[in-house]
């Protein structure tokens, strides 16, 4: 019943993860302020390279928070998959459909929007 495992302290790992998260956030903020033109004004897979970088960095942060702060790494594989795979599948599914539809509405509606008076 009692938690026999995990009597060792993980303080070092926690501060390391904090460092990683801080550095990633710092990079995101710097990129967000500077917005380098060669990343910002390009088109790649439906968005700019800069946005793709932001998205990837966000997912990396999400991974570190879930795995090391929420201790998902220590859970049993079956629990981990039940939570993570379900979330990933449903979110990707939902986001894909919604964004495609949004683009489609823009294609249809955009040319009809009046911008000159």
């Amino acid at each position, binding site marked *: 019943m009692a938690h026999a495992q995990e009597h060792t302290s993980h303080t070092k790992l926690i501060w390391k993860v904090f460092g990683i998260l801080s550095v990633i956030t710092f990079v995101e903020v710097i990129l967000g302020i500077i917005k380098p033109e060669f990343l910002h004004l390009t088109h790649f897979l439906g968005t700019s390279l800069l946005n793709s970088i932001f998205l990837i960095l966000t997912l990396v942060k999400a991974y570190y928070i879930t795995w*090391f702060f*929420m201790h998902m790494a220590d859970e049993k594989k079956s*629990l981990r998959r039940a939570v993570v795979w379900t979330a990933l599948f449903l979110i990707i599914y939902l*986001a894909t459909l919604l*964004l495609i539809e949004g683009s489609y509405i823009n294609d249809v*509606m955009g040319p009809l929007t009046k911008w000159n008076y």
Partner: protein
Amino acid sequence: MESTIATDADRDNWDGGNQKPLEASYGKMMMWFFILSDAITFSGFLGAYGLMRFKFIDSWPIADEVFTHFPFLHGVHAPMYYVALMTFVLIFSSVTMVLAVDAGHQMKKAKVTFYMLLTIIGGVIFLGSQAWEWKNFIQGSYGAVQLNDGKIIQFVDASGHQVTLESFVKPSDNERTQHIKSKGLWFVEEAALPAITLNEVIEGFKAHPEITIRTEQINMELKEKIIIPRADAMNFLNESKAVVVGANLQVNEYGKTLFADFFFFITGFHGFHVFSGVIINIIIFFNVIIGTYERRGHYEMVEKVGLYWHFVDLVWVFVFTFFYLV
């Protein structure tokens, strides 16, 4: 097989007793599945935001031009800095939370108490920051004019930077005063009149040849709002309906009202999560102090609220990305 089926032996225990499906206690497992469902709820909201954003991809407000305030730096264009600070506060409170969980594993009551306290303080600071961010957004920065069809036009100087309405509008003697009960019909009320009227804006615009307007439309090559030459500007102003200062659920001086709606709703919903997280943390904090978990023999409760707290941080990481970065 035994670990995944409930037996009659533990009927008295609502929490499943010694049964540990997936080798996690019932409470912890249910927290995980609650978090899963909550994550999908947030995805629904952010997905709806994404739908609307793609729908108006060529006229959505540019976040860098909306959130530009920083405490004690009045009039300084400081995009991102403040929200970066908020993000650090939340990440740091996540660190203190996980340190509390870690101390709980080693049954160090004093350390758990200390780290829980830091976590609560971090949460309160974040909530305060969020309130300040809302305040700035609601009050607005420059002011704008809304056209009859709902579009927003903003005023820019020769260098293309936005200017405030106050900088070029000369207040005139207005014959109209606010209708108050003591000076009019006692059963009729009227909202405060806008400080600047539409006519004053148009007169001020005519008197300042260096000023022109820009629409919500974005030049997709340069990712900047399109500036209308002054010669054409009056055609727009002739269509104007109202002066807009700040943002709320009905109008938004920065552009699409939908942007304000989603901002208030999603950050509000997240802020409500932070708020309930702080409340739950406070309850657990006092339980730690009075020694409830010391007597129970384990600090798993701290671990469970920790899961919720980290989830709140996790959601903020995404809100930060989608509202401020991309």
